[in-house]
Structure formats: C-alpha cells, structure tokens
C-alpha cells in the first residue's frame, strides 16, 4: 500500500487517529521500506529535540529577566536559588489527555527541584538512540535505564526518569522515559531483545534547574493510549518483569 510522506510524518508524530494509525502500523509490518521512511521522520525529530533540549537548562541573561519584570535597570531583588516556580500546563490537549492521577501520583510527587546530571556527563560521544534497520533503538545510558531502573526506586539524580511500564496489545512491554537534561521524553518497547523507540517528544516545561513532575507530553501519551493493554504495571509487577528480562505477557 502507498502512503504519502505527510501521512507517514503525521504517523511518526503521533498525530493520526486510531483507525489510520492502526492501518499504517499494519502496513509497516509488511513493508520495510515504509518502516524506514517512518524511522527517518522519528530520527530527525529526535535529533532536533535533543539538540535544542539542553538550551532549557541555560539560565536566562539578566536583561531578559529584567525585561520580563518590566524593569529598565537591573532589579534590586533577584530570585533566590531554589525558588519554586509553577508552570502553566501546556495546551488544552495536554490536560485533556492527562494520565490517570493514580498512576502519576507516585512519581509526580509535587515539584522536583534541581539536581540535573549535566548533559555533558552523559558522554555525548555515546549516543542514547541510534537508527538500527528501520527502527530507532535505545543505546547507552538510556538502554541501561530501560533494562535496570525501576520507577519505584529511582532517584531524582538518575539521568533517565522511568515513567509507566505497561503491556501492549501485541504482547510486548513498553516503558515511558524522560532524558532529564535533554528535555526529551519517549517510549521504549522491548522487541527482539532491543528497546525500540516508537516515539519521542519534547518533555514538558522546565526552567533553570526547576521542574515540575508531570505526565508525558501529548505525543507520547497518544502512543501509550494506542498501545496499552489493561493497566500499567505496579511496583511489584514491574520488578517481576525486569527479572524476566522484559519478556511481554503472552496472550
């Protein structure tokens, strides 16, 4: 079957409705060339997201802070370190798709302050995602976190935050993640011994070492909602799944 580039791009971005998404997902299984084109869209998106992500950790210059506060001269009062800032939730769609409170309650833990492991400490010479065949797959610190890290025991200082772990309708296990200092969120699904990355997206608002824990961005949520079977795993099931090397439930 033939799909135009715009449709494949929208599929890669998680922008298609469920019927169309399923149709293309089925076609991808049959057609490696088609899968390759989708993977290229995802890889470019990931490349842009990762390149611009670290800019969010840069402190804004005084002249902009003063402009925002309506001051002509440097303000006498400057923000103290460690102040907590609340962010507007981006877009009405983000709210409409917000994940069930129960699942996020544990990890949301109100505001999470500071403490990013700098992007550079993550050895940028070792990529965290690579294009393998027609799929984007996790490597390095990301693959290690997806393999080992449990949402129930992870630390705020871990460079990767693991979100939900869940069974998919086609019997695999997927885990949502966020690369803290890259401003990138995504989903990893264990297929044939590798963590495939079906979607990445810019992670929600953060600012100069202050961030608010919240659910994944809409693009990631859409893919989760399209794939999830039943409820996300709880802490006990997550640990069992790890011990079984993330072999998905046979249905």
């Amino acid at each position, binding site marked *: 079957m033939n799909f135009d580039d715009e449709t494949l791009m929208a599929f890669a971005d998680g922008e298609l409705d469920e019927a169309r998404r399923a149709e293309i997902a089925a076609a991808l299984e049959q057609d490696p060339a088609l899968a390759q084109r989708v993977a290229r869209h995802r890889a470019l998106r990931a490349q842009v997201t990762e390149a611009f992500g670290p800019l969010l950790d840069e402190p804004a210059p005084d*002249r902009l802070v003063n402009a925002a506060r309506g001051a002509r001269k440097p303000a006498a009062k400057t923000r103290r370190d460690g102040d907590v800032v609340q962010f507007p939730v981006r877009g009405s769609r983000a709210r409409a798709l917000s994940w069930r409170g129960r699942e996020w309650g544990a990890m949301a833990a109100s505001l999470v302050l500071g403490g990013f492991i700098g992007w550079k400490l993550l050895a940028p010479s070792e990529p965290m995602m690579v294009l393998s065949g027609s799929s984007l797959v996790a490597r390095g610190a990301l693959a290690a976190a997806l393999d080992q890290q449990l949402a129930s025991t992870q630390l705020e200082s871990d460079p990767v935050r693991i979100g939900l772990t869940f069974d998919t309708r086609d019997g695999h296990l997927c885990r949502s993640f966020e690369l803290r200092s890259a401003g990138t969120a995504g989903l990893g699904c264990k297929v044939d011994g590798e963590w495939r990355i079906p979607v990445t*997206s810019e992670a929600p608002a953060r600012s100069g070492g202050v961030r608010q824990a919240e659910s994944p961005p809409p693009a990631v949520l859409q893919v989760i909602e399209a794939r999830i079977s039943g409820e996300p795993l709880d802490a006990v099931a997550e640990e069992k799944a790890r011990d079984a090397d993330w072999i998905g439930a046979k249905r």
Partner: protein
Amino acid sequence: MEENQGAGRMIHHESMTARPEEIGELIVALLPRLRRFARSLSRNQHDADDLVQVAVERALRHREQFRAGANLASWLFGIMKNAWLDDRRSRARRGEVALPEDSGEHPAVIPGDASTTLWSITEAMNKLPEDQRLAIAFVLVEGMSYKEAAELLEIPIGTLTSRLARGRGALAAALSDQGKGEPA
C-alpha cells in the same frame, strides 16, 4: 514564596486578572522556552535574545489583551512569531540579506556533541523559507501538536502539515549535505 503562590493562583483561578508583577514572574519562568524557540529562528544566541526581549516587552505593553486563563506560553509564542516576521520584513526592506551572512558561531566540530548538532541544525534551518521554519520551530523544537501550531500560525492543519513535511525534507537534506563535508 509569596510570589510563587501568586503565580499558582493565577493559573488555577482563570477568572482572575493577572497583576503586572504576576505576569512578569510567569514570563520569567517561561524564558528558557522562549529563548529556545527564538534560538531556532535566529542565527545565534545574541539575535535570539534580542528577539525574546522584543517579544517580552511587546507582551507587557499589551498585557491587557491577554485573556486571563488563556495559555500564556501560546500567547507569547504568537507574539514572538509576529516580532520575528516583522524583523525579517524590515531587514528585507533595508536591503539586508539574511542568507549568506555568517552566524559567527563556529564551534569546534565534535561528532555527536550536542552543541555541534545544534549548530548544524540552526545552520540548516536558516536556509528554509520562513513558513517552513516556523512550522519546524513550533512542532519539532517546541513540541506543539499540529493543531496548536496551526492555530498560532493561523493556517489550516493541512497547510501546516504540508509546510512541516517540506521543511523536514529540506532540513534532512541540508543535514545530510553537511555530513558529506560540503560548506554549510
């Protein structure tokens, strides 16, 4: 702390009108996103910060037009988009050609390094037509949905999709050319 509670109030009680100092603190909190977005439209960080400053000052001058409860980030991104287009047009009128000028930022090229990638991508984006560049900035850099981006650009989703696809194609081609060692 009082400032922060104020910020929270404004977000959650949509009927409240933002006081000037409240909107200012909210904008301060949004500065990293505004700067990143501006960076994707500018050749270097200095131009990007100039753009942010113009947009922030314009927003504060017209703060009564901001509907309390609306999305402040979207409003500011819209203002910045207009400020950027205004600047491009006035440069064009003055006969300044934006294309061949040097960005002045040539990092040592370290393969895989995040700042090198950023430089490559902004160089490539600078070659795109304005409409495609805005589509990429909103969707790929800022991470907006197609619907949000189309609303801010005041175009139908189909038009946004088509600009985004063309922009991505051109961006991928430009990055691939850079990878082959052609002059950027």
